[in-house]
């Protein structure tokens, strides 16, 4: 035995950073093993991107239907301490015994006493674009991120609250049915917890489509990102799932509303921001399949719509995926090899210009709506977090394991594991697998009980 090595007893509590499907899966795996988990989530609810999706490929399960039971399980689990609207500020200590500082951002609503009735939001005068609906709808400054949010409690967005800004308002306090539930003067606080292991599951953000100027995203109202379309087509979205044009309301804001017409010709453009030296060289892995899924959803809701997809290579790599691709083709979707180069506006239509490579033809055709299948990229705080935790990132900014092939959940730092898309683009099944693998590594360490330094 090396006498210089000290043995540290591993604290049996675990910290999971990120409350998306990866964090939820990992937290449940450990908590169901009768061990305590702190689940830290930056936003007001767990669920992450998966909660925003309408369906999952290739089985076309309703994403919310399979996710919300897990979210509720997390919320009710006696072994999980759910810390939403919180951020990890600092990590000190050594493997097996990390001291983690967590910022609890002031929700200004008492989570214990709030009954989630929504009376406060009804009276709140401030409208804010809703993050959950990919900014296609409005929410109030006091809000619940979406109806199935966990915890299902209101919180106040200090960035928009009129009272926080100038001390005048308090409409929510007056409306609230529970005494002393809303405290507009509540301050952020910092807490410190001790954990033995950390699982990083911070996910991704979608590529900013306005960077590709030739597609006119942000300029042409009916050029949408795939995430916007996920919300548009969702029954809980801005139009109750009816596919409608984005149009201007009375105040001049661009919104989706049931008063608009239905598009008849929809084009879906793959690889927006992915496989491109100008943006990201890597393949975002999920876009081909979700694009096919979106094409299916259009066909399901608008059977007579003319739906076309423009791709570079069709990457249908997983179980049931190739079959799904063939199914969508049989549904009458025009799947065309050739990257669309530009979108212009012509006589109120969107003109797309593309090469049909397999038929040596130039395509110049008018469509009504374009969906940009945006790629995925590391989250905003990924670089900061990698420094704080001492874990390495690859050239693209994804967290990386020293042994990507045989130990994909490991990091250079003992006691810290990674799971889900923060490690690299992957779909939901792969994310869940990696989350369970990370949890299993943590369980192994807790069962060993000691960490050698």
């Amino acid at each position, binding site marked *: 035995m090396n006498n210089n090595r000290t043995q540290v007893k591993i604290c049996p509590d675990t910290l999971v950073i990120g409350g998306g499907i990866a964090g939820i899966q990992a937290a449940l795996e450990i908590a169901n093993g009768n061990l305590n988990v702190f689940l830290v989530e930056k936003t007001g609810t767990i669920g992450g991107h998966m909660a925003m999706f309408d369906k999952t490929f290739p089985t076309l399960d309703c994403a919310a239907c399979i996710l919300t039971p897990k979210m509720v399980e997390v919320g009710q689990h006696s072994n999980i301490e759910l810390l939403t609207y919180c951020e990890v500020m600092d990590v000190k200590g050594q493997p097996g015994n990390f001291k983690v500082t967590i910022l609890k951002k002031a929700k200004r609503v008492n989570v214990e006493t709030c009954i989630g009735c929504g009376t406060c939001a009804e009276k709140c005068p401030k409208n804010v674009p809703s993050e959950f609906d990919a900014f296609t709808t409005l929410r109030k400054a006091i809000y619940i991120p979406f109806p199935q949010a966990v915890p299902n409690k209101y919180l106040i967005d200090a960035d928009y609250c009129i009272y926080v800004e100038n001390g005048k308002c308090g409409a929510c306090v007056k409306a609230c049915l529970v005494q002393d539930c809303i405290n507009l003067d509540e301050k952020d606080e910092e807490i410190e917890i001790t954990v033995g292991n950390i699982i990083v599951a911070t996910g991704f953000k979608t590529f900013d489509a306005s960077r590709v100027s030739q597609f006119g995203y942000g300029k042409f109202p009916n050029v949408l990102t795939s995430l916007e379309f996920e919300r548009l087509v969702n029954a809980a979205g801005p139009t109750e799932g009816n596919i409608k044009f984005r149009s201007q309301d009375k105040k001049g804001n661009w919104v989706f509303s049931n008063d608009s017409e239905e598009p008849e010709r929809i084009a879906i453009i793959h*690889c927006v921001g992915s*496989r491109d030296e100008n943006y990201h060289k890597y393949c975002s892995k999920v876009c081909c399949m979700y694009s096919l899924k979106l094409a299916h959803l259009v066909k399901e809701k608008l059977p007579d719509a003319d739906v076309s997809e423009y791709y*570079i*290579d069709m990457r249908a790599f997983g179980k049931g995926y190739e079959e799904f691709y063939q199914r969508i083709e049989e549904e009458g979707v025009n799947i065309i090899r050739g990257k669309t180069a530009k979108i212009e506006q012509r006589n109120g239509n969107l003109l797309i210009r*593309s090469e049909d*490579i397999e038929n040596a033809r*130039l395509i110049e055709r008018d469509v009504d709506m374009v969906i940009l299948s945006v790629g995925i990229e590391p989250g905003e705080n990924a670089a900061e977090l990698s420094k704080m935790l001492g874990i390495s990132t690859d050239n693209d900014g994804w967290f990386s394991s020293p042994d990507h092939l045989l130990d994909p959940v490991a990091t250079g730092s003992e006691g810290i594991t990674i799971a889900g898309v923060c490690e690299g683009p992957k779909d939901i099944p792969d994310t869940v697998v990696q989350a369970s693998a990370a949890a299993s590594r943590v369980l192994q360490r807790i069962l060993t009980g000691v960490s050698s330094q």
Partner: protein
Amino acid sequence: MQRVNSDLTKDLKKFGVQEWNECFHCGNCTAICPLTEQGSLFPRQAIRQIQLGLKDSLYRNLDPWMCYYCGECTETCPRDANPAELMMSLRRYLTSIYDWTGMSRRFYTSNYWEFGAVGAIAALIIALFVVFLPPAAEMFNNPQAFINDQGGVMINSMVAGVGEARFIRLIELGDWAMAVVVAFFLITNIFNMYYKVILKDKTLKVPIIIYITEFWSLIYNFTTQAKFSKCEKKTYWGGHLLLMTGYSIMFALVVAFLPLFQTETVFPWYHWQRILGYYSTFGILFFLAYVVIGRIQRSDFKFEFSHSTDWLFIIMLGLTTITGILVHIFRVTGLPVATYITYIIHLAILFPMILIEVPFSKWSHLAYRPFAIYFFRLKKAVVAKQYETKLAPAA
């Protein structure tokens, strides 16, 4: 059937920079290009032909001449394959393919040949002057004798024993000889291009009437460069048009109208002869400055890569223009010796430039571009006709 030529890429490398293996055929370049149309899907089709080693297809490919290097394809290429520069390299390559003498290939692939030929022709011009048209000895002793009433140099009387009328005839003769040589090679090369593109294509039978009905496009595109104007960057087209018109006017003045241009009398500045001369000089210098500054600063990626022949062309055109301006200044200010010397230098640069660049090198595009559009339209018209006859009900 055509054979795959595995040496094609090796050969092409000599004509410029190529990254054709980067291309993964997404079709972005073809679709972003404002000049592509049905049946003319560049640059991707040419890249495919190179990757597959389809030499014959490449020989009859007109696409490189349709491209005016606006560079949008390179800017947006997801693989950094630089398709715009590839088209530029292909234009050099095709120039050497059309040239039956093989000189073009030598000039493009060997600096020794290129510089050697320029040097040899320049030396010949200087030798001809030294031997047959030396300066009159009097010019050094009594320069005043060569000054006319307006205070300018009598440019056609500088040579000993050769009168004004005879001197201008001799120079004119030289110009015509140069023009005939250039025209011979250029026209035969165009015919070679026609043979490779149209005649060799056995699927293509072009009726005489189509040659006639499409002829207007040749003239139209030669004079206006209308296709070029469809590129997004209009300044480049405008500058190029200025160069082209300026150069054409100057060429006409010195070859066809030399006695009217190179006169003993110095006309006032508003005389048509001088106005046209100034316009031409400005047109050439303006575009030249734009290109030189661009290539030095590499302001635009189209200037990032410069083939040695690009520089030689620019330098020769620049020196021709500058010496031309100097001849004008010395002549107008009454400096006979300086006029004589710069006049010879001017011709010693001008002759090799025209003789090498026009039929064998960069300048041949003045003919290949409009002819490529003409041939493309012929092909298109034939295909349209075949389509019509197939669809037409039997009489």
